[in-house]
């Protein structure tokens, strides 16, 4: 069952158990729904929980505006954990280990409505019906290496998380910007190398798990976490500006991100952007840049999240809100496309 490409790659040779049915139908699994599954992968400490918490913070803010043009609902099973990390962020702390452990998956139901329906209140109201919303199920894959190792020894089918991964509609790949290096600076034993191999292996597993000519598209999403802490030297050597191009400048933005990924996550980005493998087509990757302003640790106080005042007079973490809103919109579109 291993493809030729994989046989060349020592790391991923044993990545998938031989008895795994790659063409099995998603609908036959008990948890299966039309709700798109988004897997979040990231190196240890890359900020997976923080990203999810900031995505929630962006929703809370958008969902409570005067304009009332965005609404969301969080299932009871997910709210306990996500509101805990939200509280921590709003208190100026990063998610603690207990809160991180608590979050393994989360479901959001989101809806937004077009402007200009102000007078047509009935239509406006219908825009919020459950049928008009998009649902997204996020799965956090912690310790990617461990997960893959467990998978390699064959216990995969009882590992629902890995099923989630293989049948997911999108994968958010976190790139810890503090670990980025410039071309020519690569260190073969750097943490990014191992991570790159693990992500590449996972992506190829996803590819193989789809049936030939599968209509479902897989959406790779790269999030450069901690981008405010990226090494300036890495950007300078790559001849990049200190800030990425604006969200709407998609082409320039992609080029900016690729300049970093081609050096740091070479295998993964090559795999993702390869034209077509076994008839499986990946969607064009999208790129987002996350930052949270922090206050340096002092004495007995840990590094803290800086809070900033909002227009309404309250507080919120000082983060790249626009990036998260763009991410949210892109996920909403993805969910609609997937019929979630």
């Amino acid at each position, binding site marked *: 069952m291993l493809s030729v490409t994989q046989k060349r790659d020592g790391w991923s040779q044993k990545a998938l158990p031989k008895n795994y049915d790659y063409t099995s139908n998603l609908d036959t699994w008990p948890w299966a729904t039309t709700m798109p599954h988004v897997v979040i992968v990231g190196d240890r400490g890359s900020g997976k929980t923080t990203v999810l918490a900031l995505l929630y913070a962006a929703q809370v803010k958008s969902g409570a505006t005067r304009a009332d043009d965005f609404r969301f609902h969080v299932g009871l099973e997910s*709210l*306990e954990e996500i*509101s805990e990390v*939200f509280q921590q962020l709003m208190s100026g702390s990063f998610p603690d280990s207990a809160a991180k452990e608590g979050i393994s998956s989360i479901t959001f139901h989101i809806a937004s409505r077009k402007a200009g329906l102000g007078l047509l209140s009935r239509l406006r109201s219908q825009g919020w019906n*459950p049928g008009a919303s998009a649902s997204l199920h996020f799965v956090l894959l912690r310790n990617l290496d461990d997960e893959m190792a467990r998978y390699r020894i064959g216990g995969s089918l009882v590992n629902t998380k890995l099923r989630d991964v293989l049948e997911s509609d999108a994968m958010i790949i976190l790139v810890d910007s503090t670990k980025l290096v410039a071309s020519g600076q690569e260190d073969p034993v750097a943490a990014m190398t191992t991570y790159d191999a693990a992500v590449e292996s996972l992506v190829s597993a996803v590819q193989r798990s789809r049936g030939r000519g599968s209509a479902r598209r897989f959406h790779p999403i790269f999030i450069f976490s901690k981008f405010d802490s990226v090494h300036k030297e890495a950007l300078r050597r790559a001849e990049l500006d200190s800030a990425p191009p604006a969200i709407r400048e998609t082409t320039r933005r992609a080029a900016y991100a690729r300049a970093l990924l081609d050096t740091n996550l070479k295998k993964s980005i090559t795999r993702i952007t390869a034209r077509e493998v076994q008839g499986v087509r990946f969607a064009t990757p999208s790129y987002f840049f996350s930052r949270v302003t922090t206050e340096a640790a002092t004495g007995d106080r840990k590094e803290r999240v800086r*809070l900033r005042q909002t227009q309404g007079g309250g507080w919120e973490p000082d983060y790249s809100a626009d990036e998260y809103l763009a991410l949210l919109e892109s996920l909403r579109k993805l969910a609609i496309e997937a019929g979630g």
Partner: protein
Amino acid sequence: MPCALLGDRASGKTTFLGLLYSAQVKYGTGVQDDFRFHAPIQSLNLMSAVYEGMKDGRFPSATLKEEITELGFIFGYLRKVVGKLPYYIRQQNWARPFSTLRFSAYDVSGEDIEEFIETGIASRPLIQQLLKSVVVVVLVDCSKMTTEIDTPAYKKMLRYDSTVAKLLVAFQTYKKQEYDRLKDSGVKAEAPRIYPAFVLSKFDTLKDDVLARLGLHRGFPESKRQRKEYAEALLRVFVPQTLSQIRGGKIAGVSMDRAAYFLSWVRTETQEGMDPVGQSRIVRTGFAPEGGGEADFSYDEYVEFIEHFRDIAHKIPDEILEAEKFQAQALVRSA
């Protein structure tokens, strides 16, 4: 129609109930006679004690608060059509002159509700009773509204926001489950709806700097729309998760869109230039033909609160009766 009251520790739940009772007494003895209320004896005993204390200038004592686990009133609103009938017909029971609303306050700890949040099963009757509520009254303590992020009050409010958001989603989940159950059993039921009411308690303690920062003035507007905007400006800052989950209810299939907002304040004695020592005392009104010697509080707001439920009481009973009829059928079947 069951109605639940949610409030943080020391947010003024008992005071709110005491003031509501005072307003009921005054409003229910007005000349118009289109609002009446009834309270079971246990509730009446407790509320009378709170009422008496307030007339004596005292806030409810801790012992009295502890005695409250479930407290109920039945509000009766004269039906519009019946109100136009001659007096002697109006008095006949067959005319069903009043639409009723059962207002209950439960003292339920966070741990009690945790079971439902974690398992999705409400096994305890009190929790089931609570989750059946169609009206959810949320007390938001204005004395804890601060823009100083490193204060305990700020953190308390953050925690309270999470708790209320979770509770509201618990209500939505339960309602949706019940609705789906009814639908699966062939009972035609309307899409579930919860009526939230926010009471900004201790409004007189809201700090000027908070209002200034939010661009609000001290007076609460009169028009319904402006009241909503004013209150939501506060909720957006201090309980954003709650506000967003109220709106998000519609996405979950349980509309909570018809939220209403009220203020609660009670004037307390202050001595100029001195900080109050111990529990402050309630200022009482002077005697006048319409009554007197009562706590000086936001009476008009409480009347608004009582009146808010008039429409709901007229509308809801059919749905509730439908659900109760189904439950009775289910019981007969299982017997």
